[in-house]
């Protein structure tokens, strides 16, 4: 029997779900006023009496103080189906979609002594004063997401929950060796393999040599392993790059640029080398202190987030946490960083192309997804950024990062022949089939329909339970290797771990969420929250017992068998056999063309009539404006290591430069996390964009007190379709900049990731929208003692203000240019050697305690920097720019002084008694005294007797805070 329990807010209690819907609807294009009430509900299948169901409702599902329930057989007339003209809408997760609440409910019912056949949750809405087409619009735009949920109107006419049909085993081979090129391409597209013709021909040749046809699972395995997502075939491939300096040939572009610079630096560091493991494990590892190393990884989860923002972001953060959990022999996650790129959330809903979600809905969903996963995992989200540009409309970007800490002697893994392959955590379902190959394809208006299966929903508590037992198993030395199941599922995890040995996998041994999965689906499913271990046979029992003691699913699914073969079995029968060598080295090399021609520099044509108005406009522009609405939804203090929070200052609301956390509560050593990114500079020159991003990430770290000689960085390239030579050219150019900057700053890259083909094809208008070249640089610094850290808020009236670093006429891509629609100007460049010296000096003065506050100059230049420092500290400033020089320009230019975004600059606040000591730390031309902190709300910048900006810090703060105060 199928019982339904509806749970309503009790009399006098607010209907929060309905309130939120009423708030969001106008932004999504429904202007008409309407009525809505909401309830949440449970469907429970099982032979229960009414009394039992009432007990479940009272003791488990509803809160008797603030909620009331309605109970009956599903669809019974006791449920209000619109008695007073309301339209009733139920939203249920589609069969097979993860329903974490239902899973918990099933387990919790066992505590009450009741065993259900199944449980499913739903949301229910009563909508008034809308016509049916408008109700459909509301369902589509707000209440449900077709890729994971179904909408049922009126009565809920269900009598049972679907549990999947049994699977009848049948081995499938594919007619491949005699196929024509057209037929190969057809096999490729029908199977969503995302291979190119050359790769298909190579596979064909391989099977001709073997004198047999491939099985379906073999083709899938090859496709997953060779996918862009898993092998980075474009950037790690051969590239012929041409720009104004000539032509360069790369055999492996990433290896010869970014990776090579790290290798060179490690050599240069010699005995003092502090890089432990770079570009090979799931995350990069560096030394932290005598006991521990730290690992850092940032991943993207763009395509899934475009289709289902909540689930995509949710599993994005879940995935990157598993990356650090699966680094070395397992690192304990200590903090998250999240960076997003969206189109303007205020976009008119009529201008959103069909087939894609409104940017406001994407943003809200992504933020909620990251929030719910990170908070539940108990990992503080301490740093992040949100960047807005309308070219992200079809391809929002979601970067999720995680830092982990691990004992020094647990930093390397090596599976041994004979080790059992043990899978722990989530069960396997159809979730995310074809995620790896899907993220290597371009999105289009049909994407939502075709690729819905590629969206996964996470269950953070399952992952938290995995993390809890993983650390215990690590410390008991129960296994030789661990890795996460990410894109490609078991196929990638086992394939990578067994690359040097060989492996045999017993697919029927994997625990399933429901019946009906084929052996191939089991192998490539991207069901979440699974980790794979290489466990010596003697430890298997203890490993499984440990997992059972905390209710974590654990199963032996195979063995690492020497011989260099990957053998896949189902119920004892071989369904696939591949040579590891062919799988990992058989992909044909491709030579790709890459060209870059920087656009010619244009002069700045706009001018300013009111610097104060310009500053207000910059502060209220989306990229600069306060992200407090987002930040406060993240727990940034769990684990109790919070030292510098994302929001700082007298009223806890100023924009901190970087986060500092103390991972070991018995030590004063800190980890610093920051990021740098500026896609607008890429419209000018991707070399300078990359260099600026690196400088920004490093200077943010330095601003709070990080040692500039102990910063490690990560790259994340998100680009348009790199099959086009100019796209690949702009990327290669950025990679070259990364190499150059890393060498000059002596700041090693330790890990990276790329997401290519971020383009959206609007089939209606035939308009192709490529994202701007987007390179995220994430930095992980260290401080010897957290007590030395500084924040950016002004501290005390009477203190002196100094500008550190050189200003040039670099208005290109600046925020002043953006608010004035100015396309000209020179893009900011980086003089890394000069910057490096400056950063060393800044660090020394911070360590000595001579700096009371420090803030880097970025979007909005000096004016925005001073405004943020002032309103964060709730103190005024009196600034005179007459001593401020502009490099290579004898004429003073106040527009440039106020708004140029030249790199490698800070404003520092120095107490009068330390001015002399502070000044001695720098060369004379590196610092300029520009003013004084005042005990007022006045924000005043002048050039001798000419007043440039004269306003009030509350006014500026209000501009900065009101835009995204949702």
């Amino acid at each position, binding site marked *: 029997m199928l019982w339904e329990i509806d749970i309503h807010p009790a009399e006098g209690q607010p209907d929060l779900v309905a309130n939120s819907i009423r708030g969001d609807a106008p932004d999504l294009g429904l202007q008409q006023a309407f009525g809505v009430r909401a309830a949440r509900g449970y469907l429970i299948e099982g032979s229960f009496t009414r009394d039992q169901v009432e007990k479940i409702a009272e003791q488990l599902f509803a*809160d008797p103080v603030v909620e009331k329930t309605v109970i009956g057989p599903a669809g019974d007339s006791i449920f209000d189906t619109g008695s007073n003209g309301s339209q009733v809408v139920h939203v249920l997760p589609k069969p097979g979609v993860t329903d974490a609440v239902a899973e918990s409910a099933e387990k919790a019912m066992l505590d009450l002594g009741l065993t259900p056949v199944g449980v499913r949750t739903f949301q229910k809405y009563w909508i008034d004063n809308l016509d049916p087409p408008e109700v459909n619009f509301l369902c589509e735009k707000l209440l449900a997401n077709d890729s994971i949920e179904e909408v049922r109107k009126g009565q809920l006419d269900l009598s049972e929950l679907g549990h999947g049909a049994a699977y009848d085993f049948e081995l499938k081979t594919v007619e491949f060796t005699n196929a024509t090129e057209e037929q190969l391409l057809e096999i490729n597209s029908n199977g969503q393999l995302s291979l190119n013709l050359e790769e298909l021909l190579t596979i064909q040749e391989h099977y001709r040599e073997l004198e047999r046809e491939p099985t379906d699972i073999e083709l899938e395995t090859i496709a997953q392993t060779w996918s862009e997502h898993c092998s980075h075939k474009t950037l790690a491939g051969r590239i012929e790059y041409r720009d104004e300096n000539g032509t360069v040939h790369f055999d492996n572009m990433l290896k010869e640029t970014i990776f090579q610079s790290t290798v060179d630096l490690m050599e240069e560091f010699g005995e003092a080398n502090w890089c432990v493991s770079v570009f090979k494990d799931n995350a990069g590892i560096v030394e932290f202190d005598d006991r521990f190393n730290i690992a850092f990884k940032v991943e993207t989860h763009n395509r899934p987030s475009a289709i289902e923002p909540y689930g995509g972001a949710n599993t994005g953060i879940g995935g990157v946490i598993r990356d650090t959990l699966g680094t070395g022999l397992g690192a304990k996650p200590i903090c998250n960083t999240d960076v997003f790129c969206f189109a303007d959330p205020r976009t008119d809903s009529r201008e959103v192309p069909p087939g894609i979600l409104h940017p406001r809905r994407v943003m809200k969903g992504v933020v909620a997804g990251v929030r719910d996963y990170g908070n539940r995992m108990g990992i503080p989200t301490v740093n992040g950024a949100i960047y807005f540009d309308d070219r992200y409309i079809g391809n929002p970007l979601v970067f999720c990062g995680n830092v982990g800490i691990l004992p020094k002697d647990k930093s390397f893994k090596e599976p041994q022949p004979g080790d059992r392959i043990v899978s722990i955590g989530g069960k396997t379902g159809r979730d995310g089939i074809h995620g790896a190959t899907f993220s290597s394809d371009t999105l289009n208006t049909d994407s939502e329909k075709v690729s819905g299966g590629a969206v996964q929903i996470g269950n953070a508590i399952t992952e938290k339970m995995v993390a*809890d037992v993983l650390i215990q198993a690590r410390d008991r030395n129960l296994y030789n290797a661990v890795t996460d199941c990410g894109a490609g599922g078991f196929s990638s995890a086992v394939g990578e771990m067994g690359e040097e040995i060989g492996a045999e996998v017993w697919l029927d041994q994997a625990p399933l969420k429901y019946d009906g999965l084929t052996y191939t689906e089991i192998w490539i499913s991207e069901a979440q929250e699974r980790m794979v271990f290489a466990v010596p046979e003697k430890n298997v029992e203890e490993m499984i017992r440990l997992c059972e003691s905390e209710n974590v699913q654990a199963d032996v699914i195979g063995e690492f068998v020497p011989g260099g073969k990957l053998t896949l079995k189902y119920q004892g029968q071989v369904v696939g056999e591949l040579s590891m060598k062919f799988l990992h080295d058989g992909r044909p090399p491709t030579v790709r063309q890459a060209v870059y021609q920087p656009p010619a520099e244009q002069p700045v044509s706009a001018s300013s009539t009111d610097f104060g108005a310009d500053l207000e406009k910059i502060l209220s522009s989306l990229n600069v404006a306060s992200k407090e609405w987002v930040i*406060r939804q993240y727990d940034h203090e769990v684990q109790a290591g919070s030292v510098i929070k994302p929001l*700082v200052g007298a009223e806890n609301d100023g924009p901190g430069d970087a986060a500092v956390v*103390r991972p070991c509560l018995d030590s004063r050593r800190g980890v610093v996390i920051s990021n740098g990114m500026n896609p607008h500079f890429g419209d000018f020159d991707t070399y300078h964009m990359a260099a600026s991003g690196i400088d920004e990430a490093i200077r943010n770290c330095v601003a709070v007190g990080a040692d500039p000689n102990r910063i490690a960085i990560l790259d994340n390239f998100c680009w348009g379709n790199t099959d086009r030579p100019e796209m690949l050219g702009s990327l290669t150019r950025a990679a070259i900049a990364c190499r150059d900057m890393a060498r000059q700053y002596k700041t090693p890259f330790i890990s990276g990731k790329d997401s290519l083909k971020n383009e959206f094809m609007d089939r209606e208008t035939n308009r192709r929208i490529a994202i701007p070249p987007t390179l995220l640089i994430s930095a992980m610094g260290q401080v010897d003692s957290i007590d030395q850290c500084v924040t950016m808020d002004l501290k005390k009236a009477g203190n002196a203000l100094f500008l550190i670093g050189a200003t040039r006429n670099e208005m290109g891509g600046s925020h002043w240019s953006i608010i004035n629609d100015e396309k000209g100007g020179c893009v900011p460049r980086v003089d890394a050697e000069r910057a490096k010296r400056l950063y060393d000096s800044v660090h020394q003065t911070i360590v000595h305690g001579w700096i009371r506050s420090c803030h880097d100059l970025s979007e909005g230049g000096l004016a925005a920097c001073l405004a943020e420092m002032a309103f964060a500290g709730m103190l005024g400033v009196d600034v005179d720019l007459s001593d401020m020089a502009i490099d290579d320009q004898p004429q003073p230019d106040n527009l440039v002084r106020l708004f140029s975004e030249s790199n490698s600059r800070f404003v520092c606040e120095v107490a009068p008694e330390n001015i002399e000591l502070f000044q001695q730390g720098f060369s004379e031309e590196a610092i300029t005294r520009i003013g004084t902190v005042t005990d007022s709300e006045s924000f005043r910048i002048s050039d001798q007797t000419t007043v440039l900006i004269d306003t009030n810090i509350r006014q500026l703060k209000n501009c900065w805070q009101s835009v995204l105060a949702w």
Partner: protein
Amino acid sequence: MATPKALIVRAPGTNCDVETSHAFELAGAETEVMHINRLLENPALGKQYQMLCIPGGFSYGDDIGAGRIFANQFRLFLDELIHDFKASQKLILGICNGFQVLMKSGALFDSPDQQATLTWNESGMYYDRWVNLAIANDHCVFLSGISEMYLPIAHAEGRFVAASEETLAHLTDQHQLPLCYSAGDGTVTGEKLEFPHNPNGSMANIAGMCDPSGRIFGLMPHPERYLDRTQHPHWTRKPEIEVGDGLAIFRNAVQAFA
């Protein structure tokens, strides 16, 4: 007397166990973190401890209602242990999710009815922010000698609602509502304060509640997140800060066994 022992009980999704254990140790206790399954297998394991703490987190995902599943386990399977703690004048502390668990387990009430609850914040949102707290009475062992505190909250379901005005009056009369959100002036007011002083819309600005004995206490703010001066959001502005406000709660607990 020997060093008192604190048992920190974790469930799937508990995530503040490490720092809570650290807080008890800083205050001078011996601690052990134990999975609830061990205690369910053998409830008598709990008897060797003087203090029991349910730390923050999202026990069982908080999927059905914050703390509900964990609370049912205490109510259905560990009532004897709780009874034993009450009878032998031992202490129980619930922080954030632990408070939600205590509230829904019934351990805080003098009758079988659930007299109050913690439900969704008025905003419908999860918030991490710092709040000012004032102490209404000195009945609760954990709050002894404290007049005000500045501590972080981080929750979505922290709005205190009493079942009725009469219940609220009853709880107040019994000094069971000792911890309130305040406007930073150290005073307790009956008037409901505006956001963000009252961050979740709690009735009577209630942030923490104890049982009639004052020895079982739950609170939404996180005292274990403010032990060190560098955890205060203004520590770079206030060199005079030496120690975090939260430590006093753990010291009071340990002190009770001195």
